[in-house]
């Protein structure tokens, strides 16, 4: 069994989670301070990829970063590399599809954050940057962690948008989800099952680790 799809999926999911981690947190932070009208509009736009069919996201992506798209054509002309049909094309697709999960979970955590902690810290002379990293984030740890894990799990399982921008090239762009589909089309059920179980195992590990993180929060120092 060629393990390339496993490696590729983890690589893509890891990098796109890294991107959505920061993008999601900062979007959530700024939206939570935005005036109400702006908030509503931003919230809609930022959540859109979650409710759109992934194929629609893939379609838009192809139209922008494809070799004929406004972004894709320029990058091809300037740097000479294609943004579609490569392994890293999947990063754009999964990052967009998983972004709302991170953004919404973190925003929820920020909204329950006790602003008095922030106020108290400000009156103590602590900078807003310090308070963001050392007070707000640690106290919203739960939400940020579950957002990250959910985004990672979703990235591993992303199929629709990914398959449109990467296609299926064995040993180059194949991921677990596209491999399972390909094997099923070829009637290779035995191998398809193997990949299905790999996927199940990863999902279980991810979900169990979330639960463990949540229950074993912080051991009390007395």
């Amino acid at each position, binding site marked *: 069994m060629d393990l390339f799809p496993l490696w590729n999926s983890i690589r893509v999911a890891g990098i796109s989670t890294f991107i959505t981690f920061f993008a999601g947190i900062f979007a959530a932070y700024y939206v939570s301070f935005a005036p109400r009208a702006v908030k509503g509009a931003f919230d809609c736009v930022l959540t859109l990829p979650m409710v759109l069919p992934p194929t629609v996201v893939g379609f838009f992506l192809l139209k922008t970063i494809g070799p004929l798209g406004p972004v894709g054509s320029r990058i091809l002309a300037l740097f000479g590399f294609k943004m579609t049909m490569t392994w890293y094309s999947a990063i754009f697709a999964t990052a967009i599809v998983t972004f709302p999960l991170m953004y919404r979970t973190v925003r929820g955590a920020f909204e329950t954050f*006790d602003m*008095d*902690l*922030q*106020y*108290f*810290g*400000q*009156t*103590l*002379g*602590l*900078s807003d940057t*310090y308070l963001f990293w*050392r*007070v707000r984030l*640690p*106290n919203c*740890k739960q939400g940020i962690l579950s957002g990250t894990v959910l985004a990672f799990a979703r990235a591993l399982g992303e199929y629709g948008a990914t398959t449109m921008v990467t296609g299926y090239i064995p040993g180059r762009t194949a991921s677990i989800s596209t491999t399972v589909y390909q094997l099923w089309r070829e009637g290779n059920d035995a191998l398809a099952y193997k990949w299905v179980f790999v996927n199940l195992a990863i999902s279980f590990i991810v979900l169990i680790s979330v639960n463990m993180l949540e229950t074993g929060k*912080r051991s*009390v*120092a*007395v």
Partner: protein
Amino acid sequence: MSLYAKIRHRAGRFRLDVEFETGPGVMGLLGASGCGKSMTLKCIAGVIRPDEGLISYDGRVFFDSRRKIDLPPQVRGVGLLFQNGALFPNMTLSDSIAAVLKSRGDNAVSAASLVKKFHLEGLENHYPENMSGGQRQRAALACIMARGPSVLMLDEPLSALDSYLRWQLEGELARVASEFGGVTLYVSHNRDEVYRMCSSVCVMNAGRTEALRSIDELFESPDTLASCLLSGCKNYSRAGISDRGIRALDWGTELACAVRFGPDTEYVGVRSHYVRKSDTKTGTNVFACRIDRVTRDVFGTIVNVIPLGAPSDGDFSRIRMEMPREEATGLRAGDEIYVRIRPEDVMPLKK
């Protein structure tokens, strides 16, 4: 060394419109829940930006909407103690103090001396969740003093505590405030706390402040319904002015009043222990009542009476009397008694 605040701010339907100036010593901000006390403190601290106004301390402008000055809370030097302490849940006591001392950047105070000063020895490595309510407040005070504020503001610091701890911490706060010596604002809805802690008081009602006055003025001669309610008075009637004095509409009786009152008098108030049983049936401010209810209290008896002349639809007709237990023996609900109010105990009130 005085703090001046004139603040106008809207939040949804709520309108805040306050103005006061106070010097060194403890000033109370007394008002019912939701009247804008905490919002006022947050505006002074700089964590909420008011719509308009002027806030300055000792000649230094913190906020001026006209000149577009708005100093960030970090540099105002205003310490704010929250009801629950607002300590960072993810930091131990020594972490928090160290963070404040580090941002301050000098060695004028040491963490150890603060820990000692606020009796926090042994709690240095505790997280707030492992401290009692009183310890949390003292720990928060230690952090505030680590910052070295020039104005100290205490926002309902005792409300989250049970009564024994409350009494202990109150003593602590009084000591801190007097050692601090600068401008201190003490926010509370509890008149007893304010009476004991403060030298002057500003009553707040529905987002507006009344004139600043000494604590004795408020308790001896409140002049508005709101300040009278806050000073703990329990008996009110709507009032009309008549040639003999004040007509208490809800009690159906004329009251002679020894205090001067203006034409804007709309209510009259009498404190519970100034309504006394009368042995005679006639005399100044003597009138007949029927006993509605007799309640034994911890150290005395509360007798609720309804004046015989009260209109049947009066919501405020019930008068509460408080007396020692011996005086109340033999009084039963349904009995008729005569009560007397001395003219000097009648308080005419503006709206």
